[in-house]
């Protein structure tokens, strides 16, 4: 019913508009085409000026309404650089924006057709053209310079003391693997993936580096002020680890691991205070189209102190022991005689 109403109103509006448009054409013919053309020229000239003024006011209004909803404090060291670069660029481009839009609409208004106004034959002017080639070129060079400088800082090698976490995307969720005490992520091979046998990551149980690796899903824990390097991969299609609050992002590509590193600078608790939002959590958003659940592919990050992190880690059992309960000292205290790892792993 409602839809019918809307369609009817639209159709009616259509019809009325069309009749008016038609009528105005007849009027134009009757009154002399030239006269009504000049009149509509004046109207449109005025509207262009009005558009400029209202548009610029609108830009400020929009900013007032929305500026509180974006960005917020960057929660990583790299985030500070990204935001600085962003605001510098915003300053420069906004200046150019206002200047050129005013030029465009003001010239249009000012030089609208008038009797006795003689247009100026002005086909070119080398000096002017040189000026507006060189100035943008210099400005852009400065922006490129800064940008690349920051870019290399952000994408440079991770500090030695960085902790490593493996992040794996799949339709439609996130998996994480911590290297454990040895700091080394054990080898894995995709053909070993077997969630039924408690090996969702495809770890190769022959690799001793795997013995202490901890596997968790959906929620990653990080230590505040400690650099972290994420080793990123995907199981099925391309995903993307999007960390809006840290201003970081990296694709998760099946078959081609990628990395990124940063240092979280606020714990989740601190961010709750800073944002005044008691429900604040760091979210991982999948930023690369990955299928019908793309929009809901959400992971969580908890940033906490070292002590909290250690306590959390201590509560986790290495996946090796989950998959091979026979090896678990907590389950069966001494038997070293248990058979070799259950899964016949191929080492690449």
């Amino acid at each position, binding site marked *: 019913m409602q839809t019918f109403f809307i369609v009817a109103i*639209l159709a009616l509006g259509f019809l009325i508009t069309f009749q008016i448009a038609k009528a105005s*054409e007849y009027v134009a013919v009757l009154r002399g085409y030239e006269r009504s053309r000049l009149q509509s020229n004046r109207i449109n000239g005025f509207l262009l000026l009005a558009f400029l003024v209202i548009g610029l006011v609108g830009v400020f209004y*929009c900013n007032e309404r929305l500026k509180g909803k*974006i960005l917020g404090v960057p929660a990583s060291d790299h985030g500070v650089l990204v935001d600085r670069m962003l605001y510098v660029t915003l300053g420069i481009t906004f200046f150019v924006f206002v200047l050129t839009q005013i030029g*465009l609409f003001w010239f249009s208004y000012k030089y609208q*057709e008038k009797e006795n106004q003689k247009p100026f034959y002005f086909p070119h002017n080398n000096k002017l053209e040189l000026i507006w*080639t060189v100035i943008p070129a210099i400005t852009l060079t400065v922006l490129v310079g800064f940008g690349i400088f920051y*870019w290399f800082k952000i994408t440079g090698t991770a500090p030695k003391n960085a902790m490593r976490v493996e992040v794996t995307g799949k339709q439609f969720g996130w998996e994480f693997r911590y290297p454990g005490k040895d700091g080394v992520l054990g080898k894995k091979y995709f053909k070993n993936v077997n969630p039924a046998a408690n090996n969702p990551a495809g770890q190769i149980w022959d690799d001793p580096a795997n013995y202490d690796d901890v596997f968790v899903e959906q929620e990653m824990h990080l230590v505040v002020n400690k650099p972290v390097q994420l080793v990123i991969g995907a199981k099925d299609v391309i995903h993307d680890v999007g960390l809006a609050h840290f201003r970081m992002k990296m694709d998760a590509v099946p078959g081609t691991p990628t990395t990124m590193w940063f240092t979280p600078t606020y714990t989740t608790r601190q961010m709750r205070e800073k944002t005044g939002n008691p429900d604040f959590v760091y979210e991982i958003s999948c930023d690369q189209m990955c*299928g019908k659940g793309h929009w809901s592919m959400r992971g969580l990050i908890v940033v906490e102190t070292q002590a909290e992190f250690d306590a959390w880690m201590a509560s986790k059992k290495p996946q090796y022991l989950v998959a091979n309960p026979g090896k678990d000292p907590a389950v069966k205290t001494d038997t070293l005689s248990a058979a070799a790892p259950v899964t016949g792993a191929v080492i690449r």
Partner: protein
Amino acid sequence: MSEAINIHSGAAGHAVHHDDHGHGHPEQSFISKYIFSMDHKTIGKQFLITGIVWAIIGGLFSVLFRLQLGFPDQSFPILETFFGHWAKGGQIQPEFYYGLVTIHGTVLVFFVLTAGLSGTFANLLIPLQIGARDMASPFLNMLSYWFFFIASIIMLSSIFVHTGPASGGWTMYPPLSALRQAGDGQKIGTDLWLIAMALFIVSSLLGGLNYISTILNMRTKGMSMTRLPLPVWAMFFTAVLGVLSFPVLLSGAILLIFDRNLGTSFYLSDIVINGEILPNEGGSAILYQHLFWFLGHPEVYIILLPAMGMVSEILSVNARKPIFGYMAMLGSMFSIAVLAFLVWAHHMFVTGLNPFLGSVFVLLTLLIAVPSAIKVFNWLTTLWRGNIRFTPAALFAIGFVSLFISGGLTGIFLGNSTIDIHLHDTMFVVAHFHIVMGVASFFGMFAGVYHWFPKMFGRYLNNTLGYLHFWVTMVGAYLIFWPMHYQGLAGMPRRYLDKRGWVSFNQFADLDKMITVVSIIVFAVQLMFVFNFFYSIFKGRKVTSQNPWGANTLEWTTKIKPGHGNWDGEIPEVHRWPYDYAKDGREFIPQTEPVGANESKH
């Protein structure tokens, strides 16, 4: 105003029809005249009308998915009536949503703004403005349209298959697009998409080669390259870009077809999907992205250059003043065409690309902003001290410049890899490319339609509807896309159909509602334009003078409705560049007029 408008040659409109075949063509049947026509003007109209049909479909799809974005919690029973299980309970299902988005993007970028825009105006304007009777090969030209038509049919059919159309996004990245297991849209829909695109590429190559050889070989006497009107130059660069880059996309698509159907591993490696372990090893998913964007970036200029060319022409004609910096315009189009091939990896900064390589692409990307800036300043100077007539075409041209500024400036954010880390694949990108490529090119196209409609059909579009069309679209475009930047700055990813489950992105519900409402209004106004278009073909005010805008270029030296072959007698000879407006106190001096003995030089 110009004496031209006051010339009343009442009978001319009718006389035309008889002389159509004056230069010795046999009488044509309806089919060879309107359907399998080899007349470039008719082929241009075929491209335009097919493009309009696609634009309506693409636009309607955007209204549908905007409904979901603006009102995620509301049910629209009428959707279920029309789309059945795709909109169960009146709510758009995710697979349907992604199918809509994908087809929307594909048809608007390729079928409307590439075929519909270049196809229409390259066909219409190249022969008419360079002084040729037709294209170099009218037959290939006709084939070009029919390949496009078949591609259209196949793309359209994919909407009706049971598992739905392709839904991997218009970029169609594998492995998602390579794996049938990945979702419904990755089944037959994706095959149809790939076949349609392959045929589309054939069409576009046939067209492009024809445009290039026509421009190089068939110019009339005196029409040196530096006397070509800017639309022709723009079409030339567009065609060169297309001919060099479309084959690369074709190869990318063919490898994808192989991976899907023949068990090859070009793009596939280490994949476990739905618990199934695939045998493929050693492929690279990123390879496809290189192949795609090697076309993909030039593609944005393929879309934009024709609009730029037409806007330059229309601004100059209606400012009654020469285009400022003709040679600089050529130079900047040339450098855009060259640089367009050297920036593709700026779409891939966060794919794990080598950071050093990334920095090279930052440099080259921001370099391409310089010629863009030059063009903007030249347009502004063209308006400065003119005597501007605000025809609907002129307004759309002015609107184009405004949008190009807005969208070009946000490109400087994205081209800077540091900022792109945060903004990549967010709504900011959506805002950027819609303004600079989508809406701006549409404005160029509208400007072209309003300006050359009299040449195409011998009638005018209704002006009042034209003004309404312009103002609603202009205001609407900014209302829709400007605030979207803010969503992107908040990090909101693109292609998210419901943000209510997120803590970080759920603060824009009101905004999304507003955007949806405005989109519906803007779409309605486009329908009004379409109505105006078809109504005016038959019932519009008749053109009574040969040169209604008082323009210099050759198309206005033909009869009001030129027949096959364009000029009845000799093709006119050209004596000057096309922008002698306001020179020596004369309002305009057509290209055909010999240079006077004591005419001033510039």
